[in-house]
């Protein structure tokens, strides 16, 4: 087994393990740490795919900023272990079978469409890395309006968070 396959399977295993831990953990802080594990292994997979910039952003923004925000809120609200409750009738008789069906369908079609494409093209992922220069040229030419719109979005998010979280003293 060659090195890329080894890296892929180790990281994929860690990612799936982290996602399972997120589901099985009782304490929210354990779920948060499991999610950090998933994000870091996904960043390694982005490196394997040659997307260096996305891997760096994944570490800095997701595993850094967003998860610190989550851990901070868990600490602030002193969130303990969650209490178990019974499932509703809808979840038991409609939700669960439909959910399992969706998962099977999703896996089936993703696998088959990807396999079909590879046979048609006769190619797999290129191993060369994506040029960050090319990506930023595209970001500031073709996608410059969405890029500027996201800055407005972040401004609105900051204002929204401030308005929502402020304490009503008066």
């Amino acid at each position, binding site marked *: 087994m060659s090195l890329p396959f080894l890296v892929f399977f180790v990281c994929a295993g860690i990612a799936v393990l982290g996602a399972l831990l997120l589901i099985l953990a009782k304490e929210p802080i354990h779920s948060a740490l499991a999610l950090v594990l998933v994000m870091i292994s996904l960043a390694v997979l982005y490196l394997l795919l040659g997307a260096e910039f996305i891997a760096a952003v994944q570490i800095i923004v997701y595993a850094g*900023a*967003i998860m610190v925000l989550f851990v901070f809120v868990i600490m602030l609200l002193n969130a303990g272990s969650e209490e178990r409750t019974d499932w509703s009738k809808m979840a038991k008789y409609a939700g669960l079978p439909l959910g399992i069906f969706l998962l099977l369908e999703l896996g089936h079609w993703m696998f088959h469409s*990807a396999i079909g494409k590879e046979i048609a093209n006769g190619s797999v992922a290129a191993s060369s890395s994506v040029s960050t220069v090319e990506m930023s040229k595209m970001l500031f030419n073709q996608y410059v309006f969405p890029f500027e719109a996201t800055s407005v979005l972040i401004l609105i998010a900051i204002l929204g968070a401030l308005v929502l979280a402020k304490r009503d003293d008066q």
Partner: protein
Amino acid sequence: MSVVPISYYLVLSAILFGLGVIAFVFKRNIITIFMAIELMLNAVNLAFVAFARAHNQLDGLVFVFFVIVVAAAEAAVGLAIVITVYQNRQTLNIERIDTLKF
């Protein structure tokens, strides 16, 4: 040097998305449900990057960038809502936040 086929990444993405949906449905803590949403966004990002490599187009990577930005904004506003809900209800269990339940 052989490379990993795209279908492997897509299957991993589907598995992670499915686990995110399961966590979203099964968890009872509102913060953990937010984490499940982040997990699903990560799974979709992986599919985006994999398809961008398969087609050798950079548009997918730009979209991943935008998804990450929107996820950051969503986490900020969402966690502010969680704090407000906790101040009003003194609970994080979604079973007890059921005013809109029918």
